[in-house]
């Protein structure tokens, strides 16, 4: 009596042995000489089983180790129209697909509705530790009695609901692959990267939900989301969700001059670098030019010196003492506000934290302390917080109403998302964004690129040397206030409020 065909999971793949009857299985498998059995990619699990079962072939499934969840939902609030529609579309698409919603349109709540309607063990993958903790706090509050765990940021839990970073989930992809029935990818544009995509490829999860405000990738790999998660099934732009109270958001750019010493040093560094570039006929305007510069810097002592000079100039422009003076002025002016301070450089974060005794969060901050610090900030115990890049993506800080960007590099996504965070505000409050830039440095051009201005503006900027010693509105160069898209009321009701 021949044994019945059995499907089993092996480190991110499936083994089918012995071969079943019927013929639907044939197109899914490959013969593996190493084990003398048939193997198929784990991600084919659902299609394979659907196909063999459709023709009535018997296959015993020993691969799936995911469990049913008894989710007790504490939150019974009515979803918004777009959340309801998105959920409906996702279910119609067989519970596979990508939903595009602007930052702050309640993606997390949508995901929780999907979990409630698909009660299987769930792996949630997020790009940052902050998002990890945000999800964690919300799931704990909303699915009381369920065991929610973390993978990454120093935690290595083993729970039916698991929130993991992309990096950790990718490292453990072979082990996680058959334990979760539902995969949720937050900021899912991260997934198609070489190493991270294995989270989807090595998983048998039949149900998959991707969430993003900005699914496009510069390398075009966002097309892969179709196979890794599912087709884009619902998409709303910020404009589509307009309505409700229009919030007003001002962007105030403040230019500061370098101190005389810093200016001299900056000019010397730039001159040294430029001499080398000119000598080697390198233009830094293109990525290729930049790569060539990096390559040259490893080949000659002059190149190395030019690179060091370039770095020093950058550090001078980004972390200048004058900026700290402006920061103190701004903090004085907004003494009663909840202020978030951003800067790209970790060193600057710690300089600010140590000098002004403001709590800091960077990628080095431990998981538990990060959570605690953010909680204190939300509760107002800490009125100010200084962070580096770690808080970039969609982190919910509903009470911040003033943001100060103390230098930054350009990518549109970063800029939009930083703004988005500040926009998550309580009714009636004016959200303010300050951008503090050193004048006459390359940083100024970065800032303009970020605003989508043409480069011709830079000549104007360098000739207008604004000496800003205080941060009064009339002293700073006030840019036209931007009417950014209002974020739907969903944000006003954050899960943390429950």
């Amino acid at each position: 009596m021949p044994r019945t065909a059995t499907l089993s999971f092996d480190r991110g793949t499936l083994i089918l042995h012995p071969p079943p009857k019927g013929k639907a299985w044939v197109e899914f498998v490959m013969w593996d000489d190493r084990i003398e059995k048939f193997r198929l990619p784990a991600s084919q699990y659902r299609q394979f089983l659907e196909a063999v079962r459709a023709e009535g072939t018997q296959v015993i499934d020993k691969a799936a180790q995911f469990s049913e969840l008894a989710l007790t939902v504490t939150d019974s609030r009515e979803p918004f129209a777009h959340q309801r529609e998105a959920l409906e579309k996702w279910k119609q698409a067989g519970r596979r697909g990508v939903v595009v919603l602007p930052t702050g349109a309640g993606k997390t709540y949508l995901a929780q509705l999907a979990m409630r309607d698909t009660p299987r063990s769930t792996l949630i993958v997020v790009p940052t530790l902050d998002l990890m903790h945000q999800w964690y706090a919300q799931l704990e509050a909303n699915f009381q009695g369920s065991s929610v765990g973390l993978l990454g940021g120093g935690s290595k839990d083993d729970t039916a609901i698991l929130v993991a970073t992309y990096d950790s989930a990718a490292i453990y992809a072979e082990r996680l692959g058959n334990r979760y029935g539902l995969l949720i990818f937050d900021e899912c544009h991260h997934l198609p990267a070489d190493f991270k995509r294995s989270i989807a490829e090595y998983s048998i999860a039949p149900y998959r939900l991707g969430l993003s405000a900005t699914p496009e990738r510069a390398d075009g790999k966002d097309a892969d989301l179709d196979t890794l998660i599912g087709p884009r099934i619902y998409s709303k732009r910020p404009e589509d969700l307009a309505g409700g109270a229009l919030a007003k958001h001002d962007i105030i750019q403040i230019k500061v001059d370098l101190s005389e010493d810093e200016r001299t040093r900056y000019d010397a560094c730039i001159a040294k670098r430029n001499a080398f570039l000119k000598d080697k006929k390198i233009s830094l305007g293109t990525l290729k030019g930049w790569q060539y510069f990096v390559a040259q810097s490893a080949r000659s002592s002059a190149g190395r010196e030019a690179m060091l000079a370039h770095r020093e100039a950058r550090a001078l422009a980004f972390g200048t003492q004058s900026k700290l003076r402006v920061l103190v002025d701004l903090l004085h002016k907004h003494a009663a506000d909840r202020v978030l301070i951003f800067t790209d450089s970790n060193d600057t974060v710690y300089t600010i934290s140590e000098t002004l005794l403001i709590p800091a969060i960077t990628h080095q901050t431990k998981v538990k302390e990060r959570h605690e610090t953010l909680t204190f900030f939300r509760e107002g115990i800490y009125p100010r917080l200084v962070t580096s890049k770690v808080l970039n993506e969609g982190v919910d800080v509903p009470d911040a109403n003033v943001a100060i960007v103390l230098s930054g590099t350009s990518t549109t996504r970063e800029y939009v998302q930083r703004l988005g965070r500040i926009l998550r505000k309580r009714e009636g409050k004016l959200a303010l964004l300050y951008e503090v830039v050193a004048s006459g440095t390359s940083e100024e051009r970065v800032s303009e690129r970020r605003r989508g201005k043409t480069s011709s503006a830079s000549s104007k900027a360098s000739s207008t040397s604004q000496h800003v010693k205080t941060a009064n509105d009339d002293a700073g160069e006030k840019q036209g206030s931007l009417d950014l898209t209002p974020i739907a009321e969903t944000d006003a009701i954050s899960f943390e409020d429950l």
Partner: protein
Amino acid sequence: MLPSDLLMRRIQGDEIVPKRLKHSEANLATATDVIEVFEAQLGETKGTLEAALQVLEGNDTDYRTKRGFAHILTNSFSEFEVKSPLEPADLRQKVFAASAKQIPSEANSNKVLAQVASDLSQETQTHVTPDMVRAGLYADLQDNHVLTRFDAPNANTLIDRYNLSQAQGVLYRASHIIITAYRNDPGEYKQLFRFLKLFGLMAYIEGDADHGFTITIDGPASLFKASTRYGTDLAKFLPALLQVSRWSMDATLVPPNNLYGPMPDEVHYRLDAECGLVSHYKPGTTYDSAVEEAFASRWAKTKTDWRLEREVDLLPIPGSVMVPDFRLVHPEHEKTYLLEIVGYWRPKYLQKKFAQVRKADRDDLILAVSERLNLEAAGVKLDDVPAKIIWFKGKVNPQDVLAAVA
């Protein structure tokens, strides 16, 4: 192993050649310089250590070599600790809670620090200064960790380790490697396959003990598409390969994206037993057990033309491999025999061993089984075992084995 940005390699034809440092005066001097910086920085913070290393780097274009040395010394020869009399996270909470009530300024910061210092002095009954509070605030940051132990290697060892790391780095981009193991005695394959299993790799084995073996190594999902997913595992595997006596390796690589010049579609990295790379893995013990060792030495004293070879044959079994302890070769007989000594008592081991023997299905296998083992209790039945079985008490007698091959 080194991070990608410290890897140095060039392309030559279809081959990647990693940086290889000679044990020259100059290189030994550089290695010694870096080692001495670590020795001098014992007790200092990681930040200070890195600053000192940066001074040593200077404007040198070979800064990546020095940085590579430093990376290896940091990760494999050093220990760092958080040194702080006050738990930094608690200290931060105290300080930030106090400063939250103030408008931020340097003057107010000094007031807060003084206040916290005086509170702590009272609480702990020690003298805590504001500067100590400021310094302790982030004592747990990587940069502020203190180098508490450094086991200085000698300069030659460091260069060996560096060269090995560069070679391993090439394999980060490997989709699979093919090893050709020539006629080897001893083969020392057991250790190789132990590491293979440890790193989650898979092997496909072809060949025989007389002509050598071709072993293709990759991972489970390699079947569907070439990927670098198992590259770091293959890199970790390399030092284990270096312990085998005669071999050559051909690694197929996905071209790295930071090389200059025209790039072939497929690039290779080739190595052999003469490559001069030095493994830092602890060599496997020559014999798995005292029983095997005793048997080999008794065999040496036995008068017979049958020659005993150790770990030379590989019996591929779907999903695994069996490496019999010995092989018996006679100059006048074509027929050879394989001898496996079964003396370990754990039921799991016994079950696996006998399942392997069944799957291997060889007619030239001799099992020497200890009479002390309770096979029945382990659930092992001997009815359908396709091997000659000889029983032994304590020691395996060469005459019993000779009787079995006669």
